[in-house]
C-alpha cells in the first residue's frame, strides 16, 4: 500500500501531462514536424518558422543548392529594420500542385501578422524525396549586391523653427494649402469607399489627413471616417497622393452626399529618399488574381526600412475608380530593386485604363 499510492500519483500526473499535450495540439504538431510525406515536410517547415526554430527549419531543408543558414533566416525573419522584422507567421495553408514519386510541388499561403496588419505571402515550394523523408528545396535568396560606392546626398530639408507670437496677428504662418483634386464614392460588396486624389499646392511640405462624412437624405451624419494609412500623409510641394476612406457596413443607397474635410499641418520634412517605381504592369498572380506589379528602386543612399505602395486606378475618362495599397516586407536598400504587387478587384480590372503608383516610406531613426 505504501508503494501503490506514489505509483498512482505518478501515473495520474503522467496522464494529466499527456492530456494537456494532446489538448494543446501536440499530435498535430508532431504530425507537422514529421516529414513522411511532402505535405508533412512543408507543414513541419512552416511550424518551425512559426516557432522561430531556425536550426530545425534549416536542418529540414534540402541543401543541394548550398543555401546558407544566415541567408535563409534573413529572408524569413527580415533584415535592416524591414517590416518582416516586426512580423510573425500567424497561420499557413498548404495544398499540392504536383506530385510524383520523388518530387512534389506545393503551394503555401503564409499569413503574417505585422505592425501594419495582416500580410499574405504565396510561395510555391519544391519538395524532394530523400530516402524515407521529404525535404523542402528552399530557393536560394537572391539578395541584391550593390557595388561599393559613394552616393552624394545633397538632400533638401524643411525645418519649422521659432515659436508662435503671443501678439494677435503678429507671427503666424499659414497651414499649407492643399486641395482635393477628385472624389468618387463607390460601392463594394461590404462597404462604401470614398476615394480620390489630393494635391499639396503650396511651396512647403504638408502633413495631411483626409476625412469624409457620409450624409443621409435628411442631412444628418451617417458615418465619419478618416483615410488612416491609405494615403501619403506627408506631401512635398506639388506632390499628389491618392486617398481612400472606407465605410464598412454602409450601402450607397443610404447616402445622399459626402462631406470632405482635408486638414494640413506645417511639418519638417526631407525630400529624400527618392524612390522610383519601375516596370509596372498589370498581370496575374499564382492564384489567377489581377495584380499591379513592378519594382521599387531606392535611388538614394539611405535605407528605407518600411515601404508602402499606394496605387490609384483610373477609368477611360480619367476618373479615379479604385485605390489600393500594399506593404513590402523587405527594406529598400540603396539602388536595390525590390518587387511589389497590389491586388486589383476583377470589376476594377475590367474598367481600368491607367494607373499611378505613389510610395510611402518609413526610415527608422538612427541611434
Amino acid at each position, binding site marked *: 500500500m505504501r508503494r501503490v499510492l506514489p505509483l498512482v500519483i505518478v501515473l495520474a500526473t503522467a496522464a494529466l501531462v499527456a492530456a494537456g499535450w494532446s489538448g494543446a495540439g501536440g499530435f498535430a504538431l508532431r504530425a507537422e514536424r514529421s516529414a513522411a510525406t511532402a505535405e508533412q515536410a512543408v507543414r513541419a517547415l512552416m511550424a518551425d518558422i512559426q516557432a522561430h526554430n531556425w536550426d530545425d527549419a534549416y536542418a529540414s531543408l534540402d541543401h543541394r543548392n548550398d543555401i546558407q543558414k544566415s541567408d535563409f533566416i534573413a529572408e524569413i525573419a527580415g533584415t535592416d529594420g524591414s517590416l518582416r522584422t516586426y512580423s510573425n507567421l500567424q497561420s499557413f495553408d498548404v495544398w499540392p500542385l504536383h506530385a510524383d514519386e520523388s518530387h512534389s510541388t506545393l503551394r503555401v499561403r503564409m499569413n503574417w501578422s505585422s505592425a501594419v496588419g495582416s500580410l499574405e505571402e504565396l510561395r510555391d515550394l519544391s519538395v524532394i524525396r530523400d530516402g524515407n523523408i521529404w525535404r523542402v528545396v528552399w530557393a536560394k535568396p537572391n539578395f541584391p549586391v550593390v557595388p561599393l560606392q559613394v552616393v552624394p546626398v545633397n538632400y533638401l530639408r524643411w525645418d519649422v523653427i521659432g515659436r508662435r507670437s503671443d501678439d494677435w496677428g503678429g507671427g*503666424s504662418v499659414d497651414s499649407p494649402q492643399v486641395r482635393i483634386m477628385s472624389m468618387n464614392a463607390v460601392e463594394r460588396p461590404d462597404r462604401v469607399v470614398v476615394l480620390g486624389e489630393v494635391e499639396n499646392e503650396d511651396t512647403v511640405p504638408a502633413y495631411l489627413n483626409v476625412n469624409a462624412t457620409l450624409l443621409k437624405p435628411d442631412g444628418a451624419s451617417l458615418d465619419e471616417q478618416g483615410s488612416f494609412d491609405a494615403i501619403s500623409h506627408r506631401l*512635398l510641394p506639388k506632390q499628389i497622393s491618392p486617398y481612400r476612406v472606407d465605410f464598412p457596413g454602409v450601402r450607397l443607397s443610404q447616402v445622399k452626399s459626402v462631406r470632405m474635410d482635408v486638414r494640413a499641418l506645417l511639418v519638417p520634412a526631407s525630400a529624400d529618399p527618392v524612390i522610383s517605381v519601375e516596370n*509596372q504592369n498589370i498581370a496575374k498572380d499564382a492564384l489567377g488574381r489581377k495584380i499591379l506589379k513592378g519594382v521599387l528602386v531606392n535611388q538614394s543612399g539611405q535605407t528605407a526600412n518600411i515601404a508602402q505602395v499606394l496605387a490609384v486606378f483610373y477609368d477611360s475618362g480619367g476618373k479615379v475608380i479604385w485605390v489600393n495599397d500594399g506593404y513590402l516586407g523587405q527594406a529598400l536598400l540603396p539602388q536595390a530593386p525590390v518587387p511589389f504587387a497590389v491586388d486589383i478587384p476583377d470589376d476594377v480590372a475590367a474598367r481600368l485604363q491607367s494607373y499611378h503608383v505613389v510610395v510611402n516610406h518609413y526610415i527608422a531613426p538612427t541611434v
Partner: protein
Amino acid sequence: MNALLTARLLLVLIALPAIGQPIGLRPPSAVAAGSPVSIATSGAGTATFYLLGPSHAVKRTVQLGQEVSIPGSDLSSSGLYQAIACDSSGCASAAFQVLPASPARFSFLVHPSRVPVNTANAINATALVFDRFENTVLEPSSVAFRFSPGVGEPFNRRVPTELGIAWLQMGSTSKQGPLRVLASVGENAETRVIQQVASEACGLRMQATSGPRNVRLQTEPVRDCGGNPLPDGTVVSFTKIDGAGRSTVDTPIKKGVASAQFSVSGPARISVACGVVLGNEISLGGQP
C-alpha cells in the same frame, strides 16, 4: 460681488418709478474714456452713490448738493454708464455715455502668410484701431498701409476705418519674394511680411540624354508663367512607358531643375509633369 451689486441696483431701478425723487443727478451727456468727470447732485444730506458701467461698478457715500468726482480710472471702458444716488427718501438715476478715447494702438492682421504671385484679391490686410484702454475707436480714423515688394517700387494705400476697422484686399505682385506691409495710425506702426511664392509651373520642358542602356532626363529650369523659379523641393514626376511597362519617379527640384534616370527597353515614351501641369513628351527609339 459685482453681480450681487448689479442685482441690487436693478431692484432699485425697478422700484424707482414708485418712489419720489427728491434728489437729482446731472452727469455730462458724454465723456472720453479715461477722463475724470464731475456729476452735479441736488438734494440735502448724504446718499449712497452707485456708478454702474459695462465692466465696472462703484459704490460710495456722497454729500448731496455737491459734485461727485469720478476719477478716469473708473471710466476706462467705453459704453453706457448709469449713475444712481439713493437716500432714505428714494433714488435718482441718470445715464451718460463714455466714448473711446483717441487712437493709441492697433492690431494688424495680414492674411495669408504665403501667396502665389499674380493672384487677384489674395492679400487681405486688416487693422483694428483701439484707444489706450483697448476700446475700439468707433470714430473714423485713417490707417496708412505701405507695401514694399522685394522687387519694384513701394506703394501706399490709405483706408478710413469703419466702426474701428480698416481693411483692404489686393492682388499679389508678379515677382516672388517678401512683401512688407507697414500699417500706421498716427505715431504707431506695425509691419508684417508676406512671402510671395512662385505659382504653377509654366512651359515645363525636359531634355533626354540617351546612354547605352538608359536615358537621363533633366528639365529646363522650372519656372512659373511670370518667370519665377519654382522652389527647390517641388516635386516633378517623370513617367516612362516602354516594353517593360510603366515606370515613374517623383523627384524634387534641386538647384532649379529636376532630373531622373530610367533604363529603357525598346521604344519608349517619356512625359513630365509638375502637380497638375503637364510638360513635353519625348519618344525614344530605344535599344534593339
